[in-house]
């Protein structure tokens, strides 16, 4: 979650004079330490798990819901003309939609897009608890499916068969109809990947446990994390978009370089 950056010690000058950068470095170190400490502190408080089912959490979630979501989803979460009913969508759905910043939606469009998250983890958990209390639905997945330690070969195969037609074989994303699109999967957390599969946000179909078992979902996550953590063996991947980016690269940079060199070769002789 948090990386404590230990800054490299500033190189000591032989002459013993204070470098003009010394004070800047000192301030930077100070800021890093205080910032890092603050980040550590705040995450440790957040990870102090709130009891999801407690009445207090649900009450808090209801208040948050009423002030942030009810305009579109209705006060009882039963939906209005501008937003669907949330009864029965489960905690997983809320965690995905709010946790990736898709909700609250910034504006109407072909689909809600990922953006900066508007709530803290506690608030998201409270919202999820409130929505989950309305009716049973998919819960936030168990941590044992999210460890990315499964079978990546099986995950890759499942991914190619079930996911690649929209998300591209390398998870680089793809186009759908009417301006909708399947987003790139690079950098999406294991939990959000799992939740997307069980809740089917926006244009995505639901892959329930009968369809793809939780273990298989774990394999898919394992494959995606493998792609994310291992650089392309062939060098820079050009966005993993396939022949289009390769062709574009060849014409602009490859042939561009060659034409530049032909001009250079013939110019020298004159």
């Amino acid at each position, binding site marked *: 979650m948090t990386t404590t950056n230990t800054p490299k010690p500033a190189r000591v000058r032989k002459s013993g004079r204070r470098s003009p950068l010394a004070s800047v470095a000192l301030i930077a170190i100070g800021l890093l330490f205080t910032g890092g400490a603050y980040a550590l502190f705040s995450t440790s408080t957040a990870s102090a798990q709130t009891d999801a089912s407690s009445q207090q959490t649900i009450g808090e979630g209801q208040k948050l819901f009423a002030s942030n979501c009810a305009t579109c989803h209705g006060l009882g979460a039963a939906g209005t003309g501008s937003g669907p009913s949330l009864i029965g969508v489960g905690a997983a759905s809320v965690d995905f939609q709010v946790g990736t910043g898709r909700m609250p939606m910034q504006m109407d469009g*072909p689909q809600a897009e990922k953006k900066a998250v508007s709530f803290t983890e506690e608030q998201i958990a409270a919202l999820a608890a409130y929505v989950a209390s309305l009716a049973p639905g998919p819960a936030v997945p168990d941590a044992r499916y999210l460890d990315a330690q499964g079978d*990546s*070969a099986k*995950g*890759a*195969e499942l991914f*190619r*068969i079930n996911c*690649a*037609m*929209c*998300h*591209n*074989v*390398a998870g*680089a*994303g*793809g*186009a*759908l*109809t*009417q*301006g909708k*699109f*399947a987003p790139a999967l690079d950098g999406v957390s294991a939990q959000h990947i799992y939740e997307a599969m069980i809740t089917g946000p926006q244009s995505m179909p639901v892959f329930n446990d009968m369809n793809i078992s939780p273990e298989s979902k774990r394999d898919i996550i394992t494959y995606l994390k*493998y*792609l994310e953590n291992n650089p*392309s*063996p*062939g*060098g*820079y*991947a*050009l966005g*993993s*978009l*396939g*022949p*289009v*980016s*390769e*062709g*574009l*690269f*060849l*014409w602009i*940079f*490859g*042939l561009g*370089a*060659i*034409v530049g*060199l*032909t*001009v250079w*070769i*013939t*110019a020298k*002789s*004159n």
Partner: protein
Amino acid sequence: MSITKTTTGVVETTKSNGGFTGAAANYIDERTSISTAVKELGRKIFPDHWSFLLGEVALYSFVIILLSGTFLTFFFSASMAPVHYEGSYVPLKGVEMSAAMSSSLNISFDIRGGLLMRQVHHWAALLFVASIGLHMLRIYFTGAFRKPRELNWVIGFILFILAMAEGFTGYSLPDDLLSGNGLRIIDGMVKGIPLVGTWISFLLFGGEFPGEAIVGRLYSLHILLLPAIIIALIAMHLLFVVVHKHTQYPGAGRTNQNVVGYPVLPVYAAKAGGFFFIVFGVVMLMASLFTINPIWNYGPYDPSPVSAGTQPDWYIGFADGALRLIPPGLEFVWLDRTWSFNILIPLVSLGLFILVVLIYPFIEAWVTGDKREHHILDRPRNAPTRTAIGAAGVTFYAALWSTASSDIIATHFHVTMEGVIHACQFATIVGPFIAFFVAKRVCLALQKKDREIVLHGYESGRIVRLPGGEYIEVHQPVDEYERWKLVSYSDYKPLMIRPNDQGRITAGQRVRGGLSRWFFEDRIVPVTTTELEQSHGDHH
């Protein structure tokens, strides 16, 4: 070393101190008489211009392809027999795939230098077709295809088609998901041909798609038949270049009878040799830094999955684009057969497009009625209609080509897929007309400007007041070298329609006359000597 011819005709050599090189050269020459060829070729003059090196780039990338391809054949197994992958790429371990895919993965991960060679081969292939394309555009827009080079244009264009065929067969060999999807599209296109389509498809694949034969068959074509034809045609192509002599751009002292430039030995041989290594270097650099065709991402071919962003390599893109542009609902059943016009229309229109490009030199020669030899290139502006036709063709091709990436355009520019397709449909159909009109007007305007410069010189910005009170602006006359370039182009007039031997005017004659008028009716005539003389002293 000197050679003296005795009266008996026996060649007698007296050795001077040539050292080992001299002795070796002499040894070879006495047995092969190669010195005649070396003298002839070594004194061959080539003009110098960067655009004359584009064909060379194609040749060099072909050499690179041959070298890297030979390496790949050592390790590739062209078989579709199912095996389980046991190489070192973890996310495919134990997965069932064809031997072709498995050996391609082994080349990529378990054979030293294999991945580099695969990427060199693929990048060089993309460069090969691209440099042919650029070379062809240079030939077209400078009119280098005119007599006596029409046949060489045809050979070159066939080479372009063969290069695409090489590319496509190679793209299909690893038997990964992407190549299988590409083959499926070809299979669909073949099956869309009425009556014979299904038969051809079954013949090609040895049964129902994908079968177990196609990789082996494509492999034979890819490494045997196609390269042999390409090498033979390249040899002919180069032979013609030597026979015809190289064309040159217009300039002072350059005529249809001479070639101004440098001899092959020592200048060009050194330059061309060095340039090969430069091209090799660029390809190596691309291959070592940038991934191309990551088959390990695509996984083995399986007819059920299709990845988003499945496209052919760039040179087949125009055909893929044509398929994407066709509106839905063009299929109907007639005579108990399904007529897939969604496939037939692209097939036929692309076929026609290719045919027109192939025979364009003959079309233009017929329309202009020009039977002279041309060794001086046209500046594109001096052939406005040809340039405009070229611009229209390029626009048509580019519109189809960009349609092939419609989904990538949609996601990366945040527009709708449907919007992209409609825009591309517009660009494909209306774009060429706009391009024709704009290019022609630009050419004519540039020609008018040239005329203006020749007759009145450049504006110098110097205002002079004459004793009488009159103000004039002094114009700087253009120097003679520059003027040569601006005035020395051939002028064509629309052909007169003439009756034939029987005194009749045939329909063909009318078409020819009409086309000729369309080509040349609004031409700008080059400045004549008389005009030039009259304009003297008129530089203001």
